[in-house]
């Protein structure tokens, strides 16, 4: 029984981890360029709505998914214009984008739909051989194409950032924009690109929530996952591989919440540890974990940075770039 429970939890962890992974990888690229985008939650809300509208209109899940990605790019452009061209405070612009995205998605969705429209979902594609591994195989290696795509994007993003010229240029404008500028790299162009890629990823994350997790549209369906994705980037200390790890850890926490992990623990109800266990496994209590973990990581990093002068955040994060003498 325990193994079966674990297997189903792992499967759910992958499903719930995917939107975090997608949005987290996108935000990673954005932040590596020196721009923080706090609008992920709003972009995901738009992606979740657009994916359902377009899927229902065209009858194609793939077209719906792509439309959400395009919508994500479009809405993140607002953040690009404000924070890159107009040198606005990135925090302010991002919070605004969340408000704009969630507000308009709710407004348009409620106007366009009567209630919560159902929509088809991506079906599971079992991977041959691997999915035949007893118990765990069917849970982890029998997911949707989007789950695999998100997984495959981890090495792709790593390669893009650390091995491609464009990726290295994006990272250079996030570390030292003045120097990058002096060797002829357009700071604005690289930052725009990074913000738009982040928007595409967040749009995809929103689509995944509608087209894989839910199977219908409802207002505020991203339910704070955009904020968890933001937390994830800091949790992972701006490293792609840790984003993967963190996404599935946070996904696992969400899976435990959805699955009602507390029920399985009632076998310990007679032990002295039960009051503590009951609290720690409470669904609402568990909802705090990703955020608390992020605060802890941030603090630990701060403590260590004092000791050994190490630094993981992009140097020019949050700073608009204004060329000297302009």
């Amino acid at each position, binding site marked *: 029984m325990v193994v079966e429970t674990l297997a189903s939890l792992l499967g759910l962890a992958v499903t719930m981890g995917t939107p975090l992974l997608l949005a987290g990888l996108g935000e990673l690229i954005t932040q590596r360029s020196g721009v*923080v985008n*706090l609008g992920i939650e709003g972009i995901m809300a738009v992606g979740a709505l657009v994916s359902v509208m377009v899927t229902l209109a065209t009858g194609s899940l793939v077209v719906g998914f792509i439309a959400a990605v395009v919508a994500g790019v479009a809405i993140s452009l*607002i953040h690009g214009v*404000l924070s890159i061209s*107009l*040198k*606005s*405070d990135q*925090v*302010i*612009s991002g*919070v*605004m984008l*969340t*408000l*704009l995205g*969630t*507000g*308009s998605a*709710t*407004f*348009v969705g*409620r*106007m366009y739909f009567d209630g919560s429209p159902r929509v088809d979902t991506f079906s599971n594609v079992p991977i041959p051989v691997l999915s035949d591994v007893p118990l765990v195989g069917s849970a982890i290696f029998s997911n949707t194409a989007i789950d695999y795509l998100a997984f495959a994007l981890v090495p792709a993003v790593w390669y893009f950032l650390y091995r491609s010229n464009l990726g290295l240029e994006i990272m250079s404008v996030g570390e030292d924009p003045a120097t990058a500028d002096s060797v002829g790299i357009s700071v604005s162009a690289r930052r725009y690109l990074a913000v738009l890629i982040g928007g595409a990823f967040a749009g995809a994350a929103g689509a995944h929530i509608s087209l894989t997790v839910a199977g219908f549209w409802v*207002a505020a369906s991203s339910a*704070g996952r955009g*904020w*968890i994705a*933001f*937390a994830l980037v*800091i949790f992972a200390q701006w490293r792609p591989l840790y984003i993967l790890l963190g996404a599935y850890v946070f996904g696992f926490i969400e899976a435990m919440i959805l699955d009602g992990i507390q029920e399985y623990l009632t076998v310990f109800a007679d032990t002295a540890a039960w009051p503590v266990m009951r*609290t720690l496994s*409470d669904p*609402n*209590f568990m*909802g*705090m974990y990703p*955020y*608390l973990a*992020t*605060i802890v990581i*941030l*603090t630990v*990093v*701060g*403590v260590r*940075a*004092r000791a050994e002068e190490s630094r993981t955040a992009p140097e020019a994060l*949050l700073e608009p770039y*204004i060329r000297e003498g*302009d």
Partner: protein
Amino acid sequence: MNVETSLEYRNETPRWLGWAVPVLTVLAALTVGALPILLAQTDPITVYLTMFLDPLTSDYRTGQILTRATPLILAGLAVYLPLKAGLWNVGAEGQIYVGGIGAAVVALTVDAGIVVLLPLTLLAGALLGALWGFVPGYLLARWNANEIVTTLMLVFVAQNLNSYMIRSVLPGPSNYPYTETFPDTAVLPPLAESGILSHVHAGVLFVPIAAAAVYVIMDRTAFGFETTVFGSSQAAAEQSGMSRFKIIVVTMTIGGLLAGAAGVSQAAGTGGRLSEAISPGYGFTAIIIALLGRRGVPQVLAAGAFFALIYVGGNAVSTSTGLSTAIIDVVQALIFLFLITGEFFKRFTVDVRVTRDTAEVV
């Protein structure tokens, strides 16, 4: 032909831009906001007339403006004060939630007369809010943990904690998303028997107290002066012997306390109980309010009252036209959007130079 644009910092913002930006911001936002309203096949002019005039026509709705302005202004001040020190408290929303939690725990577990219980309820909420501001302040001052991230994370910690308290610790009647009603001895009473003030609870009195306190601290004390200096240049402030640690921790803690008071007012006043919907995002609206009111406390008060009008008017629009209340968020976000755009023109002048390629004479 080449078109070159370059940006230059303005040495000072022209006077007319100082007032033109807020006015144009609101006008631009309302113009663009008309598009989704038109899409919904509703007349934007009727919508805006309802939004801005309806709230002033009934005692109940006018009272509502005062009631809603209370948490908005308190949370606005909670963002404003740390902002003076150059710090972003984006966590006022969470501080509102814990303010409500603190109030609820005392109100529902302590048995005492109103003279004891009500002050204790208010104090518990305000102090828990202060703690929610102190922690990010301390983590920033001591370990350099970015306050934007920590205050934001604590919003969601607070929201989940609130749900936990309501569902598991102080459960209300039959699993509704709120606690039992507070005893009368822990509720902020209405200000009058009849008239507009009968729709307004005593929590509204927090506003003049808080506004006066923030004004005095910022404009009349050495600490306020130090905070302002620190906000414009950390290096200069530290060189002249001001304590970075003190400024950060104190401003963030007072900020948390103010937003905590907003939560108290929501729970012990507006709701009379702790609810999962204790704030429809007042703490985030507070960021816009602080930004609009960056010049001083009176401006924060005005901005807070304006957004209270939008909230109450938005609800009136929703009732009379059937549009979703999300129109409130859309209009707010658009005001926000154009406000940011306007800030740009206050800070920079854009220089456009057009030059022609002259044929080189060999």
